[in-house]
Every structure is written in C-alpha cells, then in structure tokens.
C-alpha cells in the first residue's frame, strides 16, 4: 500500500510513492538522496536526524513521510550551499565543535532553532536547549562555545 507524497526539501519539490509507515528520515535519505541527515537511534533520543519541518525543528525519525507531505523541510544540506557556510557551521568549525561529525548535522539544526527562539542564549541555556541531542565525542563543551559564537555572529549580541 503506497501513498503519493510531495515534500519540498531545501527548496526543491520531491515527490514519490511511499509506504504509509515510512519514516521521514528514510524519505530524506533514500528517496531524496540527502544523507547529511543521520539515523543514530530508534527511540527518538539522539537527535542526529533533526531537520526543520515548516520552520520548526523536528526529529525526522518520529515523523511519517505522509505526515510531512505538502510541507517544507530544511536539512543540513539546505542551510548553506556547502561553500559559503552558515554562521553555525563556521562556528562549529572554528570552535572544534565536532569530532566524528555524525551528530553534527542534527546538532547544527537543533542549535539553529535554539538561536531563532533565543538569539542571545547563555551557556546554561544552550546546554538546556541541546539536551535532546547526544554527542559522544566532544563532551558538549565546544558545541556550547560554537553556538555561543554563532549567536554573536548572527547578531544576537
């Protein structure tokens, strides 16, 4: 049993016939071929699959593709062209905010929403804001610094 869907991903229309049970993250990775969004767990805990769904950050492993039909999704590939970096990408690079890089796309997407809601967060607020995303490499400290740095670059303070 498949259902037709059409989702705008990073500004491009992506359509397909998908199973009703297909997870959005699999549509993004398999149908749209955008593998920057990762699958790190199966219980909605790790946050590596975080994307923006109609402007709100969402764990794409807990959204069905059919639920997202007609919506607009932004993934890590969509926040910059890969050359001219988003301030968060630049800040993660400058602050050594990543090691293995697997959590990084989700972490950047989550941080992006955090900054959209709170443009000048304290370190404490950043730590709380990112508690839904797990990083096993960095101990979070440089991620917090990166988000703090990006907030400044984005004019937050």
């Amino acid at each position, binding site marked *: 049993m498949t259902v037709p869907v059409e989702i705008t991903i990073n500004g491009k229309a992506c359509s397909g016939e998908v199973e009703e049970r297909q997870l959005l993250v699999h549509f993004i990775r398999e149908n749209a071929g955008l593998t920057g969004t*990762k699958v*790190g*767990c199966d219980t909605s805990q790790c946050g590596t699959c975080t994307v923006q769904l109609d402007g709100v950050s969402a764990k794409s492993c807990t959204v069905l593709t059919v639920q997202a039909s007609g919506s607009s999704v932004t993934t890590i590939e969509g926040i910059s062209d890969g050359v001219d970096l988003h301030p968060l990408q630049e800040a993660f690079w400058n602050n*050594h905010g990543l090691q293995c890089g*697997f959590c990084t796309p989700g972490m950047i997407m989550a941080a992006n929403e955090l900054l959209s809601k709170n443009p000048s967060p304290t370190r404490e607020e950043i730590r709380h804001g990112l508690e839904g995303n797990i990083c096993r490499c*960095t101990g979070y*400290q440089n991620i917090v610094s990166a988000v703090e740095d990006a907030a400044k670059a984005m004019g937050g303070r």
Partner: protein
Amino acid sequence: MTTRIFGSGIRRREDPRLITGRASYTDDIKLPGTLHAAILRSPYAHANIKSVDATGAAGQPGVVAVYTGEDTDGVLNGLPCAWLIPGSDLKTPAHPAIAKDKVRYVGDAVAVVVAETRYQAEDALEHISVDYEPLDVVVSPKAAAQDGAPQLHEDVPNNIAFTWALAGGDTDAAFADAAVTVSDTITLPRLIANPMEPRSALAQWSAAMGELTLWNTTQNPHIARFVTCVVTSVPEHKIRVIAPEVGGGFGSKIPYYADEAITAFCSMKLGVPVKWTETRSENYLITTQGRDHIEEVEMAATSDGVITGLRTTVYAGMGGYLSTAAPGVPTILHGLMYSGPYNIPNISGTVYGVFNNGAPVDAYRGAGRPEATMLLERMVDLVAAAVGQDPAEVRRKNLIPKFENGHDVATGITYDSGDYESALDSCLSAAGYEALRAEQAQARADGRCVGVGVSSYVEICGLGPSQVAGAVGFQGGLWESAIIRFYPTGKANVMVGSSPHGQGEETTFAQIVAGELGVEVDDVEVIHGDTDNTPMGWGTYGSRTTAVSGAAIAVAARKIKEKSRALAAHLLEAAPEDIEYEDGRFYVRGSPDQHKTIQDIALMANVAWNMPEGMEPGLEASAFYDPPNFTYPFGAHIAVVEVDPETGRIDLQRYVAVDDCGVQINPMIVEGQVHGGVVQGVGPALWEGAVYDDDGQLVTGSMLDYALPRADLLPDIEVSSNTTPSPHHPLGVKGIGEAGTIASTPTVYNAVMDALRPLGVTRVDMPLTPEKVWRAINDARNGG
C-alpha cells in the same frame, strides 16, 4: 611562509565536509542494485536451538534469500579471537557467525534475510520460526566462575576462559607487615560505547574477479581485511576494506563482528551488493561492551600512608564469546598498570576472564586502564581516610619522583618519562585546592554535602612494540607505516595505515609534515581508511594513532628531507654536508640566497632531468615505525560535587584536568579529546551502566534506559596541560585519546564518597544514581 604550524591549534581540515552534511559514512553509500540484510537475533540469553524454519520468510514480499547457520556452517569460518594470552590456560571455543546449535546471549545471530528494501527484510524476520530450548542463565562474572554455574561452552569448565596472574615483589609479606590495610570490592558495570554512528557493512562481491569489497565501520581496516580473509577464505589480496567516514568507535569498532561476515557471505551467495546497518537497539545488544569487572582489592600501607602492597582478584566478564581483542584488555592493559603513578613495591593480581550470558566484552575507551585506575584511586583514598591524611598528600608521598628516561615498576614494565608530582601540583593549584577544602569545611558546617575528589593516573599508550605484542599473544604487529609522496607542483599526499574516525589526524598529520618539511599545511592531504590505497597498518585504538603513525610520518618526512638535501646539493653544485635546511629551504651554508625550496626539489625530483649519479627519480618516502616502548601519558584531575542528601542527586560543579601527553601537535584537538574523554568517564561514575536481569535480558536496551551524558548535566571542564616529552618518540608525543576517561571515573567517584563521608556512607556501587545514593544515606542514618 610559516612553518610554525606544528604545535598550533589550527582548525581541522576534515571539518568542512562534516559540517555541511557532505561526508559519506558507510550507511550513506549507495551502490546500484544493493539488497538489504536484516538479522534475526536470539531473544534468549542461553538456549539450545532445536530447529530453525525459515520457509515462512522466503515467500515474503521483496525477500531474495534467507540463510541460517546450516548455510554458513562450513562456508564461513568461526570468528577468531586475536589476543591469545600465553600461560593463561586460554580457551577459545568456536564462535560461529550464525549460531546453529546454541545461543549464548540475547542478540546472537540465528538467521539473515536479504530483501529489496530494509523494511521488507525486517518484516520477513517475523516469519522465521525458531524452536529454542531455554537454558539456565548466568550474568555476573563472579557467579559464572563458581562451581555449578550454568556452563556456556562445553569445553570451558566454570566458564573460565583464562586465568592470568601477576606478581612483583613479596605481596604476602607486605600485607603481613602492614600497619594499615584497606579493602573493597569494586564493581565496574558493563558500559555501552554508543558511538553516534551505528555499525554498518556494505559488501560487494565480484565473482568474475574473485574480489570482495567491504565498506565497514571499523577503526582498523587492515585488521578487518586480515580477519575477513580468515573468516571468508577470500585471499587477503583480493579483499578491499574501506572505512569511509566513521562516526566514532571508542573501541567498539575494533572487533570483527559476525555481521560483516554475514553481509559478505550474502553478497558472495547472491552476486550483488548487500548492506546491513544495525539499529541502535541492535547496537545495545550485540556491539561489544566495556568493563564488566568485579574487583576484590586490598592495599597495604604504613601508618604514615606509604603504600607497601596491592593485591587483587578480578572477575572480568567476557560475554558469550571471546571478542577479537578481549583477553588482552583485563590483563596486559589492566594488570600491568597496577602500580599507576605510585611506588608500590609489592603487587600481585589474579584475573579470571569469565564467559557470561551477555554481549561480548572488548576494548572500550581506556580499555583495562580505567578499571586499574579506579581500583588504585579508590584504595589510595581509603588509605588516606585510614591514616587520617589529606588524599592529595597521600598521593604526593607515594608518587614516583620525576624521571626522564625510564622507570621500572613492580609489574615488570618500564614507564618512559613522568613528572607526576608536577601534574598533581598543577591540578591542585588550578583547582585552588586549599580554598576548596576550606569551602568544603564551611559547607559541612552549614549541613551541606560537598565533596572534593582527586586522582592521579598514568596510562599505557602508543601500542606498541611488536616484539612485546608477540610476547603477550597479540596476533598481529603494532607498528605503523606511512608514505609521503610529493607531486611536481610541490603538493603532497600522506598515506597511512591507521584509521582516525573523529580524532582529527587529517589535520595533525598534515601539521607533522608541515613542521618537518616547511610546506603549507593546506598543501598536504592525508589519505587513510582504504586498504587499496594505504600502506599496511594496525589501526586506531590505544591512543596510538598520533603516537605511532605520527612517528612513522616524521621518520618518512626526514627521509624526504635527506633526499632533498642531496638533490639540492647537486643542483646548487655544493657538497651535501654544506647544505643547510631552514623553513622549507635548502641553501649553501653562508649563502642563503643560493637555495632550493622543497617545492623546487619536488619538481626537479619528479621530472628527473638532472639527478645525481645513482639517485632514483621521485620524491617519495615510506617508513615503518615500530615503537621501542609504549608511551605513558599521565596527569591529575580534581572534581567538586554537591550531593543533596534528601534526594541523592549529585551536582557535578567543577572538573579540573591537568594532563601531560608529551609534546602537543594541535592543542585544540588535545583539549577536545580531554573534554570528550572526561565526560565519557563521568558517565559511568554517575549515570551509565548496562543492566541485565537474571534472565540475561538487557534492561537498559535503548537510549531511553541507558543514561548517556547530556549537555545540561555537565559543567565546563577546566583543562590545562604540562609537557614531559616521551624520550623515545621522534616527536616526543605520547597520546591523549583515553586520558580523560581513565581519570574521570575515580575522580568523580572519590568526590562523591568524600561528600558522603560525614553521613557515614562508606561505599556505593557505580553508577552513583540518585536512588542508590539516597538509599545509602538512609541506610547509614538508620545505623547501616
């Protein structure tokens, strides 16, 4: 041009692809026509398999093939254990990729389905029926070693896989003469490594060429190729293993698993690419775990707190089978470090490696050394309490005095260099120790439970001399090799056999070449992870990549420099001994304007129009570096906690780390390793621990149930360092990947115990969850 890049915290060259989502991890790789495998896993921790009926799965939508142990039996060889400790009566029972007769832990593979999509493969698993005869289960490694315990393997009495003993000095006499003895039983629960990237394998078999390509989440692609050859019987030179981007490992991606063998088997049967990627739930069940120690420990000391002896009996859980490197972890990497940074003249230990009904246990960040440091640091604190002295002072009086070139300890190994007291002093000073103790006294007077924990540590890293590896039964070498190849334009590639997966060596290694040869760091590209285009190497673990591969690169760069000097002399019509080198330029002594740059030399060597008699064209060098000794990084850490006695909740308020990893190539990366390492050690002290119930079911089977450190639970870590170069290393480096994890568990544990001491609490098993702490406080209040 600057060559001061060596030693500077430049940002990482691997990051642009990672921060933009353009990097390819194994599961991101798509080959045309790929089929997807899902593996049926035992729901029982211990059971006989009476029958497997896969016919129901075969007709399911999209299913292409179903294989069971009957199919792989005799085709795939058993998974080998590759660390065969001599003199330990080691038993290595068969470890089939797919179980045929018996399962020994929840998650043991029983069958595999290959289908057009992963969803279809997973669906079809439900249509395989397996008739199990459940058997009695044993989880605790100590219980498993007792008479009458359920037996996992027929030919392994009492489940004891090996017995390893260590003795230096006269420990019995030390205890007989001791004014003070302390003891405790320390339980280090199983830990789940949790790299954020689940494991994955993509196998592509070419029947026409007899060639197997395996993309695999491995920390050591050359070992993976070696073992794939052993298991599949495909000749080693016909196997290509590629570790593309690898999303962390922490030891759990060292071993060779049944899953990659099964994936390769499926591709070889079907002639198309087959991919398998574990779910996180599978990762918790089947990917190797760490620790699982029960340590019965005693320490002897004088009435003044001078340590005179250490005695241990350790039960180390191995899980259902011996994983690739498992026997080496609680023995060589653990027992040999029983002296720590201290003078302990008399040491004895017995380690039992014990099969139990859980996932196989193998190296996890620190691998053996956190377990050794934990027991030592716990004992030192107990000695301090027994003699009524400050724990920092008891450490100081027992630390080995500064040495620059070799110090023998009672366990029989020789540390390279150390200045433990300076590290302790630096840490006490950075933490403001005296003020902390004063604040603590005030807090206690106010009825608050504030604790300060101190640890000193030394670790064995930079694994290691191959001759020693052979002597201790490691079934491989521990050298590394590197090739540096300059192109006509003066740009260079460095090919290495080790395989970093987050540690940043694409940057660090380029910095080494830049420092040695005066090229821009951006003119050097590091290639790793593909057995087809890298020289042989043994992989990334044991804080060895910069220490061993880095040395190979330095040695290769120095060969390049010598050839360049000779070619420069020829081109400048001077004698080689008259050529000076500085900052990438070779010049005639006294005439700096008469020079050739390394780029000039690269061009002239590559075109070879004017070479000296007998000199080969090209500017390329390779080096095989076999370290003469291990390296021994060290340091001291301090933690400050406050415990809420009404809830048992622990607030980690400060963490101060002083580490000495020798010469630092990129201090930013070093600091990042300390941050991550410390947090990974805080985890088991406070939150992390795998729990199996009495039936061998993993209770902490997901990230919902297994408490990983999260951003909001941690303070900023205060990091600083000292520099004591390794005397035997070409660059003086020692390694930093595991230091934080080794030090932080006992540091935080000791801090909590320090906080609880006035309440009469003397011991709590890790992890120190609020419930356990609250119960311990109440038990103490109620008279213990």
